[in-house]
């Protein structure tokens, strides 16, 4: 369960409920939690600018 309220528009909530059920989640809350965890993990694992620069410089093409 969410620790605080999050507002979703009606159409989105209806979709969430529908796909949560289709995908076998036990509730819309579980589906939303999973989706948010996945997105946060994606953002957290993105290379930082400095990391990308370092790796690009490793290619040699950029000083």
């Amino acid at each position: 369960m969410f620790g605080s309220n999050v507002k979703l528009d009606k159409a989105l909530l209806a979709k969430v409920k529908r796909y949560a059920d289709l995908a076998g989640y036990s509730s819309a809350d579980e589906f939303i939690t999973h989706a948010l965890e996945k997105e946060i993990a994606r953002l957290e694992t993105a290379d930082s600018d400095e990391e990308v620069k370092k790796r690009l410089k490793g290619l040699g093409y950029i000083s």
Partner: protein
Amino acid sequence: MNQRRLAVVAVWLSAVLLLATSACGRHHRALGRRVVVLGFDGLDFQLTRDLLAQGRLPNFAKLAERGGFSQLGTSIPPQSPVAWSTFITGLDPGGHGIFDFIHRDPKTMTPFLSTSRAVPPSHFVSVGKWQLPLTAGRVELLRRGHAFWERLEEHGIDTTVVRMPADFPPSGHATRELSGMGTPDLLGTYGTFSYFTSDPFANGGPVAGGTIVPVDVRDHVVRAALEGPDDPMLKEPVKVTAEFSAHIDASRTFAKIVVGGEERLLRVGEWSDWVPVRFSLAWGDLRAQCRFYLKQLSPEFALYVTPLNLDPLAPALPISAPGAYAADLARATGRFYTQGMPEDTKGLKTGVLTTAEFLAQARLAANEVERQYAWVLDGFTDGFLFYCFGNVDLVSHMMWRPMDPGHPAYDPAVDPQYRRVVENLYVEMDTVVGRTLARLGRDDLLVVMSDHGFTSWRRSFNLNTWLRENGYLTLRPGRRIAGGATFDDIDWSATRAYGLGLNGLYVNLRGRESSGIVDPADRDALVREISGKLLQTPDPRTSAPAVTRAFRREDVYRLSADQDLAPDIIVGYAKGTRASDDSALGGVSPDVLTDNRSAWTGDHCMDPEAVPGILLTSRRLQRKAASLKELAPAILAELGIEGFPSQEH
């Protein structure tokens, strides 16, 4: 957790699983002949033609006589990962999804490297200071489409694909496969050297492509540590290290390097062989290897250490398929550079290595590749073999200037002695072709190809500065330049277009970019307007156009998925001009055009028509291959295989 940590976690759990996916268990039929494709990265058409005319490439000449010698049109843009992906899949970038060395996520405007990524384990359990992964992570190849050797395997043909660029991790579809350009070192970079020095004037810390480490000499001994990646099992990032010592003799002529249980005695100016190194983790260890180069002992101590390469006998990342193939190669002909681009161009660019030292290091790498190729060729009796030689490309990047007295940084006192370095490598490749021809019979086929050509890089073009000067890009108030973090200080609310990567220009499109302002209905007109202006931009130094092609993506790509990653315009800089370093990372510098003063003096990321590759065949191909995209279908057609690439792409 950053990509480097993820890479190691991924490694830790899943390398072996990934490697099990090769085609080695598939049933093969005897083809009754051999097809060999030699990939020479960066072999230039014009230089090859000149050397042929001078009679310096006799084996190339034999091929030219038998099957023909022609230009091979490169990819748009002519960058190696794009070009090789085009050859591998028979698709343009719209199909295989590799548009540049560097892509960006338009939703976050975060840049990322285009060819592979590490995917972390999805679940961890925390125990004290440790994190225990419950599921396997993996390293993922981002190229889409099917590799041509998949089709060969489907027809029961045994395939060996060695050092294929832009194929890391290996696809797993060949009978045996070793990844080439794009394969990282243990740190997850394309090569990070270490340089240990007691020079009091040396600034310690990271430099482009390496790390300078200040050390003290005490009682003729230097004690230091090689730095590995973060320990993936610890929640807080802690680097793993392997201590070593250098014991200097009284005459300051020799030093004994001791690391773990390994010892090497080196003279000043001598390179070690590969030294295995173990990094202890919270549980288990990571294996790597490096070479030491004792640069000097007097007046100061200076020791260069190669990037920490994955140990081919126990690679911590999937570099071959089956997994044991890398070890088979190492046992047969010795340990070898597993990083995809072994020639240490960064060592030379940063001044850590002199030109002579760089060439000696490149020679070590080239010898390994040639020795390994001889062994692979010896064992090749039937089917298909691809083998790539990458050293011409990397040496050409650093040694083109000596061939170009018109280069702004040409040094008449130094450069003439290196005038023939690149040419001599072409002659060396001719010898490789000669050895191959001697092995092949009448029914066999030899194809010699390159992914792009080469030319001098004299002038640097900052696309973002040009966009600012022409009113398409706006900086935040008070800023004239930007280049700290990528896209730092750009006012997105007043920016209609931006540059990123070596040839990419993007519209700041509403609905695609996170702060997009250009209405999709206006995109095409804007693209045409910018293209037209770019083509009319002269280089004030020469009065000639600085840009000779501006490709609309719709005109040159058959776009499938991931359209959002494709640049809206692919900029074809005039021969001799390339995107500046700042421009490639989204920066804005004071001037649009500047002289290239870098040691990196040869390049190819320009107008594709200025840098075609080469094609030589031992007999005339039934189907014409005028470009990289057409080459794999033409080779497959020689074996009676049609329909590649399939229509689904």
